[in-house]
């Protein structure tokens, strides 16, 4: 999952920001805390430098300094999340194209797919704002045999996604990235619960306390869906 260099991505992101689509601006506002915090966030980013940090120069001033190595660790986590979101977004796009769904189920799939696409854009923008290179969009393949099997797969993917975000919460160093990841985590949980109910399962298969999943647990499970 090594990210490819994509210099155009940054230009594209800036152009998108200029057009100010609401979801992206909302998320970046979330990331930066609005106008008041924007300049402080800029200073913070400038101090962080590139994504392969690790240099002692990469520190913020004041209490709770974030080092370049910590920044690099956060970028890796956001890129991991980005890869999972790419998979989900691509999955729903293919499901919608498959023509297997109609009516209320199709509407729900469109809502969820739209969320995943927004997560992709937001996470991509986040990596760029952190001075990193966004992970490349993977080529995907999914078994789209029947509506039932697709819903089952969707439920599996969403439950895994929610567990994956939960697994990273304690590893994220920057509090603003943590806040952003958490705001996505609970949405993945909502998706998972809804799909669980639609497939006749409990909305809460883990009971009262959700279980996290580590990168090492998650990546092998999504590998079958990645062609390259």
């Amino acid at each position: 999952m090594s990210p490819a260099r994509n210099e155009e991505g940054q230009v594209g992101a800036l152009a998108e920001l200029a057009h100010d689509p609401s979801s992206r601006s909302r998320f970046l506002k979330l990331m930066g805390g609005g106008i008041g915090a924007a300049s402080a966030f800029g200073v913070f980013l400038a101090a962080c430098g590139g994504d392969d940090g690790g240099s002692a120069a990469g520190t913020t001033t004041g209490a709770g300094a974030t080092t370049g190595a910590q920044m690099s660790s956060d970028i890796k986590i956001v890129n991991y999340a980005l890869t999972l979101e790419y998979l989900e977004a691509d999955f729903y796009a293919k499901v919608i194209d498959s023509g297997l769904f109609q009516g209320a189920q199709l509407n729900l799939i469109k809502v969820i797919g739209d969320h995943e696409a927004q997560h992709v854009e937001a996470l991509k923008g986040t990596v760029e704002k952190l001075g990193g290179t966004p992970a490349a969009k993977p080529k995907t393949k999914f078994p789209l045999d029947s509506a039932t099997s697709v819903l089952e797969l969707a439920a599996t993917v969403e439950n895994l996604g929610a567990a994956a975000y939960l697994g990273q919460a304690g590893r994220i160093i920057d509090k603003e990235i943590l806040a952003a990841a958490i705001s996505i985590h609970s949405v993945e949980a909502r998706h998972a619960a809804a799909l669980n109910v639609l497939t006749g399962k409990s909305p809460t298969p883990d009971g009262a306390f959700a279980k996290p999943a580590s990168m090492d647990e998650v990546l092998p499970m999504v590998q079958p869906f990645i062609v390259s």
Partner: protein
Amino acid sequence: MSNVNTTAPELAAVEIDGMNRSTFILKGALAAGAVYGTWAVSPFVRQALAQELIPGGGEGDIGILNFALTLEYLEATFYQRGQKLELSGEVMQLAKLIGDHENEHVVALTKTINDLGGKPVPAPMVAFPMKNQGQFLKLAQTLEDTGVGAYNGAAPLIKSKDVLAAAGSIVQIEARHAAAIRLLTGAVPAPTAFDEALEPTAVLGAVKPFIK
């Protein structure tokens, strides 16, 4: 997707019995949700949390845990009362499932607060304006969505990784509850791509006028 800015007028109608400071805070928290819309409050915190969220609930992680405990007590009582209403089989089943989870959250948070050397706050005295299944579901949806917002807002303030992991593990369940309830009310299970957060300090500011 348009920005969802759910207002929750029914929360302002929740009666809180008892006249101690913590119940004022809770009432204020609910009223703030009603005034601002559950999600309208900025999700992260620019300064360290140097005051008690719940009076007598302690500061720092213990204060946050007591804040969460108060909300979980509220939810647990809500589902207990809800199960006394005439509910359909499907709704009753979910009310029991969720009520059990909220009870488990109360137990877990109480234990964590004790383990950290804090003092768990007592359960608030509450009354809910609901007489039928429709009112129950509507209030349940609002409470669960608010619970998600409260945990999401508090999470970045948490210092201990263990406490953060516990809060994350609970908020995911609250989000799942919210989605399941929303399916029953015919609402979109996930109304927005990013769940916003209810900032505890903003809640405090909003309720200050009520605190003597």
